């Protein structure tokens, strides 16, 4: 009994030592000193909203990560979870999703330590840090110690980009909304755990808004005429994580994939 009790004490102490605990600078506060998450979004020197910060997917909270992690965003499992209508699949795309399900997700890139691609990363439960500098927004992902670049220097998208997981992204402002267009995706990306696909013809448009200090809205439109009969849109929300930082997560010990069942 004594031993079990000691373990219980010991575990929380270990966890505390693992999280990076460093006060976030520049947080607006209420009169009683708590973070004021509904304060206006900060702005950069050029007057545009500043998306810089550490973000986690989901509806809200604003606290540091809790033991066990935040609840999974439903879109991580199925990107269409928040939609009333099913995705407008081409027949082959629906067949591919069904085949991936029937195969128990054995070919899910996540199970093979492969990158997930920038759409699925929006709903991945681990935090990501956005850094906005002139001409560029970088997104640093805890998951896989991976990154994505969004160019905001007005450049055109490449005509024949090398297919990649994160694509090639260029953004421009419309008022307080950053509109990011991306092309150049691989055709083996899974948009979610269900295995919804995209093809190399996909053009993805993201509309980033920061309605207040504590929250970020990312409206994602997938225009992929090879895989879907019409463009479709989902809203993926994120909330700010304070007083912590990215940990280093390498998928270094993936021993499950070879034992998974499937076809």
């Amino acid at each position, binding site marked *: 009994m004594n031993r079990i009790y000691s373990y219980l004490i010991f575990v929380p102490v270990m966890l505390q*030592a*693992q999280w*990076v605990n*460093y006060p976030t*600078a520049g947080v607006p506060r209420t009169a009683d000193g708590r973070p004021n998450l509904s304060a206006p979004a900060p702005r950069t020197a050029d007057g545009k909203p500043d998306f*810089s910060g550490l973000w986690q997917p989901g509806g809200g909270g604003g606290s540091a990560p809790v033991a066990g992690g935040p609840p999974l965003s439903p879109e991580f499992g199925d990107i269409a979870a928040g939609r009333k209508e099913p995705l407008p699949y081409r027949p082959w795309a629906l067949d591919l999703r069904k085949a991936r399900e029937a195969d128990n997700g054995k070919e899910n890139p996540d199970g*093979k*330590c*492969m*990158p997930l691609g920038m759409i699925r990363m929006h709903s991945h439960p681990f935090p990501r840090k956005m*850094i*906005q*500098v002139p*001409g*560029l927004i*970088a997104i*640093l992902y805890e998951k*896989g*110690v*991976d*990154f994505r*670049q969004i160019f905001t*220097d007005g*450049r055109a998208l*490449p005509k*024949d980009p*090398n297919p*990649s*997981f*994160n694509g090639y992204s260029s953004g421009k402002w419309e008022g307080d909304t950053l509109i990011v267009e991306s092309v150049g995706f691989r055709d083996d990306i899974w948009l979610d755990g269900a295995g919804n696909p995209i093809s190399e013809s996909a053009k993805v448009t993201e509309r980033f808004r920061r309605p207040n200090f504590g929250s970020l809205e990312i409206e994602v439109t997938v225009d992929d005429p090879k895989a879907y009969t019409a463009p479709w849109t989902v809203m993926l929300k994120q909330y700010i994580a304070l007083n912590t*930082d*990215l*940990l*280093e997560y*390498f*998928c*270094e010990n993936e021993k499950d994939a070879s034992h998974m069942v499937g076809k």
Partner: protein
Amino acid sequence: MRIALVVSFSVATLSAQWFNYPTPGIPRTPDGKPNLSAPTPRGLDGKPVLNGIWQMNGKYLQDIAADLKPGEVPYQPWAEQLFNSRRNGAGGRSDPAAKCIPGMPKLDALPYPFKIIESPGMVMMLFEGFTTFRQIFTDGRELPKDPQPTWFGYSTGKWEDDDFVVNTIGIRESTWLDNAGRPHSDALHLIERFRRRDFGHMDIELTIDDPKAYTKSWTVKEDLRLIPDTELLEYVCNENNKDYEHLVGK
């Protein structure tokens, strides 16, 4: 004739893959070429600006002591013994990079380009190799007392005259200093001095301070060049890592 065809085809394929985007703000010679010997750019605070896409001289990945004379690396006996056991490819399997995990300080020395981005409170390094990043905090914070050991460690940076000085601790002891297999311990403290000599050239003076593995600290100087008018590609090591099974070692 067939060989000639194959060769010209490969070249065409490659040229479609590289990004060709003129880097803004690069000084150019009258014929439009980047002037890489132009003066070091400086920010409003007068300090050198390190932003840009850089590529390390490849020899330091193979041998971090390439410019030192034999006997100049002050090994502790166990470290020299371990190094000797790893040389000539023996033990390559125990290098974490063989399993697609780069570590410091080898990360800086990868032969692929990396991008430095200065932002308020933090300098980022985005690496094409392994598509990964380092954060170097410049907001005045202290190094943590008992950091969780990681592959890249925990880094803070500050300016000393024209040198950007980065201190890093908390590096997992299983990383190698170079492909030759020089080891370190969990006591490793790295000091990198980034020195941009002119527009197109930078040195990293790297000091290995690790009293458990080396009898005194030792320093090497690695040189980098600016890579203009391009961008980082995506590099996915886990996709096609077929070497590991063929490496020898434990």
